[in-house]
């Protein structure tokens, strides 16, 4: 239960419902009857963290066990943090109200680089020493997973164990290992030696990194029990993977407040800018029957009236038509809306659109990513202008008057003409609307263009590319604005400073741990919130640490340079990535995995199996 101290500050902060737990389907156990207590920490606010599917899955994985209890922890907002520090109230977990520092495991999910400072802030609020070396005891063990664990080097001084790849099976194994070593009275080192031998775990302290005079890495050497390369874990059969039967239903409004069904993991497309498209390979589909059953169950236990069919590219799901046909029978009756995020313009059918509009009409978003065919070929997006036009035709004919288009600026090989191409494509969409005889009558069209700044990421063909400097990005943003000549097009862009910081951290090495600590000490947190991001403080931190951020963001790497994440194995081979990089510079596309296997190598993780081939 919540202590009196906590109760008192709850009424002095905004939205206290974020800090109290007790939501429907949250799990409360008897703490004396469990062997392992796990604090699952999301380094952002409740509203954002509660929208995250991975947390829901891992919450079930742990709580399905009788010997373990998983609780949730989120970053308190500034007003709450102030009260907590003022009244000496340490960070607590929502289910029990107990202090996080007393848990056996403290796990963070690293969804975006700009949440790193929040991890430090949460450890500090919990009263847990920041540095792994300052935590000599067996517990608490601080672990981290999620996409940013693929290059976790900047966080490696703070985290004891990183979990690479799919967490369903590794989390279960981790709990068992902690239980075993707690009972045996092992030291932390004994535990780390054991865990490092298992697939899907990476103990950064077991790798020595040496540097060249020019700042690049000269060698990474594994020691203790660590393998030369730490390999990511995967769930080989999505139908058998743990999936929650119940979602916690937040009592206050959160960002994504709905049933989320994951329909497949991985992607067949191979867009060269997209980290997720490579990190989650090989593609593994869930069968439509299993998806439907899970959706039904979740709707019953949550009372939600919206289902989102979630994946990296939903219209590529081989079972989409039969799934929708079957689901619409009961969703229409129960007034449940089906949302399909991540649709592609090259396989968006009339049938699909009709099904989208059955109960409530959701918005339509497509991502051409680049403004010209040449650049779309370079990034291997594999969509044409005709694809975009035929899709918006269908949408307008179907009654939609607003579409959102996602683009990136700062892509490798991009010129100002490519940037102007974004505005021109937007203009063609507007023109198309007025050309259509069966367009919705009496309404104007609204084309929203979001142009984010490209950040090169590890394990992509662009991992060697220099990120555009802030000046270049700003020039391109201005050029884009100047190229738009109608009010029917709305442009939104990202601040170049946040993109730069994201770029530095994404491809950083372990020397950045010091910078992150310094920045946090200067007050940096919630860096992904534009209103709270303190670029000046970050730059001061680099200055004090004697580290040049440009080295990480804006430098072209050679193919033979040792990259900070080279000792991690995510399945996709470096040779494949080099070939893809070369093809990008020649604007040559690679067909998607169902047309022809590109030989990325990720199927080795799944015993040579890949759903792209078996379900072609």
């Amino acid at each position: 239960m919540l202590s009196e101290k906590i109760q008192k500050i709850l009424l002095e902060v905004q939205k206290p419902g974020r800090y109290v737990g007790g939501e429907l389907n949250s799990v409360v156990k008897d703490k004396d009857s469990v062997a392992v207590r796990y604090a699952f920490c999301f380094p952002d606010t409740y509203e954002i963290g509660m929208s995250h599917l991975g947390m829901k899955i891992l919450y079930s994985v742990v709580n399905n066990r009788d010997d373990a209890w998983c609780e949730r922890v989120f970053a308190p907002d500034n007003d709450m943090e102030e009260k907590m520090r003022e009244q000496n109230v340490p960070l607590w977990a929502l289910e029990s109200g107990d202090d996080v520092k007393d848990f056996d495991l403290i796990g963070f999910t690293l969804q975006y680089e700009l949440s790193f400072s929040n991890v430090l802030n949460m450890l500090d609020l919990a009263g847990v020493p920041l540095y792994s070396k300052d935590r000599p005891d067996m517990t608490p063990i601080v672990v981290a997973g999620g996409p940013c664990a693929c290059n976790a080097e900047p966080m490696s001084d703070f985290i004891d164990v990183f979990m690479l790849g799919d967490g369903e099976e590794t989390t279960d194994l981790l709990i068992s290992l902690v239980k075993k070593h707690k009972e045996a009275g092992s030291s932390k080192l004994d535990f780390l030696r054991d865990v490092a031998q298992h697939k899907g775990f990476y103990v950064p302290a077991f790798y020595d990194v040496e540097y060249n005079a020019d700042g690049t890495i000269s060698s990474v050497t594994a020691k203790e029990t660590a393998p030369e390369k730490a390999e990511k874990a995967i769930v080989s059969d999505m139908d058998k993977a743990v999936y929650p039967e119940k979602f916690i239903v937040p009592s206050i409004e959160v960002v994504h407040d709905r049933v989320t069904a994951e329909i497949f993991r991985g992607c067949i497309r191979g867009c060269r800018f997209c980290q997720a498209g490579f990190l989650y390979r090989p593609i593994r589909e869930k069968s439509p029957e299993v998806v439907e059953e899970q959706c039904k169950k979740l709707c019953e236990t949550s009372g939600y009236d919206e289902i989102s069919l979630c994946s990296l590219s939903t219209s590529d799901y081989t079972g989409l038509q039969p799934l929708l046909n079957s689901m619409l029978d009961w969703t229409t009756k129960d007034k449940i809306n089906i949302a399909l995020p991540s649709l592609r313009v090259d396989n968006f059918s009339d049938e699909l659109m009709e099904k989208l509009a059955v109960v409530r009409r959701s918005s339509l978003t497509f991502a051409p990513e680049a403004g010209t065919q040449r650049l779309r070929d370079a990034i291997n997006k594999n969509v044409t202008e005709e694809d975009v036009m035929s899709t918006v035709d269908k949408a307008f004919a179907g009654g939609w008057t607003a579409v959102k288009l996602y683009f990136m600026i700062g892509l490798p090989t991009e010129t100002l003409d490519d940037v102007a191409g974004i505005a021109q494509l937007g203009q063609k969409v507007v023109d198309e609307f007025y050309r259509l005889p069966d367009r919705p009558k009496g309404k104007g069209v609204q084309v929203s263009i979001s142009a984010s700044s490209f950040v090169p990421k590890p394990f992509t063909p662009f991992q060697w590319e220099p990120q555009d400097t802030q000046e270049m990005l700003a020039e391109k943003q201005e050029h884009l604005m100047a190229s738009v000549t109608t009010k029917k097009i709305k442009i939104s862009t990202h601040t170049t400073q946040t993109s730069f910081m994201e770029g530095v951290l994404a491809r950083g090495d372990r020397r950045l741990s010091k910078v992150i600590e310094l920045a946090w000490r200067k007050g940096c947190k919630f860096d992904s919130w534009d209103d709270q991001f303190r670029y000046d403080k970050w730059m001061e931190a680099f200055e004090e640490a004697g580290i040049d951020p440009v080295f990480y963001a804006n430098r072209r790497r050679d193919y033979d340079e040792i990259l900070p994440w080279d000792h991690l194995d995510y399945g996709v081979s470096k040779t494949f990535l080099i070939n893809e990089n070369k093809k990008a510079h020649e604007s040559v596309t690679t067909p998607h995995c169902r047309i022809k296997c590109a030989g990325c190598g990720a199927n080795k993780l799944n015993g040579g199996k890949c759903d792209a081939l078996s379900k072609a």
Partner: protein
Amino acid sequence: MRSVRLNFSKTGRAIYISHLDVNRMMTRAVRRAQLPMWYTEGFNPHPYIAFALPLSLGQSSDCEYMDIRIEGDMTDEEIRQRLNATLPEGISILSVGAPVHDAKDISAAQYFVKIIFETDAEASLFCEKADELMKGAELIAEKPGKKGHRKIMKQVNLIDFIFERKITCTGNVVNLQCSLAAGNTNNLNPTLLVETIENCVGIHHKQLYVVRKKLITKNNEIFR
């Protein structure tokens, strides 16, 4: 289609759920309970749900009322059981029945207020002064109000909105039982009353617990 009035309580962790969020929560709860809800017609069909009187964040209550419309012939008891099986911690349906009064006729609410002070002396001082002030003719507080569309601070005399009161003190705890104006036109939040008195006396509580016990109609009947 028939209207059904549900009386529910809000206690424990649920007191931190705002009125708007209770509304959303109930919309989901009736779906989970699979009540044969009557749906509004139109582009965004939703079940009909209406609340008698919003409750302030952080206060407990035994007298929350929610009206729903159902089709078919599910019994009141089944509605109660089905909902209770699927409500989050701290929200519980106490009774279900046909509406008797109109929510527009609510004119007062009864509260139990427990005020805990740092010391016994502070508590007895508060108790004495509060009694005195509430017996007087004027107790002025500032309340946010509107003049046309502009938001302004209004001066109000709280005495006009206090109908009954009984105040006692044991140790460092003050117990205040009161009936205050409630409803669409006049409304006095017991927290405002306590804080106004505290400002006059110049002390501040350590903890404050408010429980709304009953809603009263303009004919002095218990709302149900």
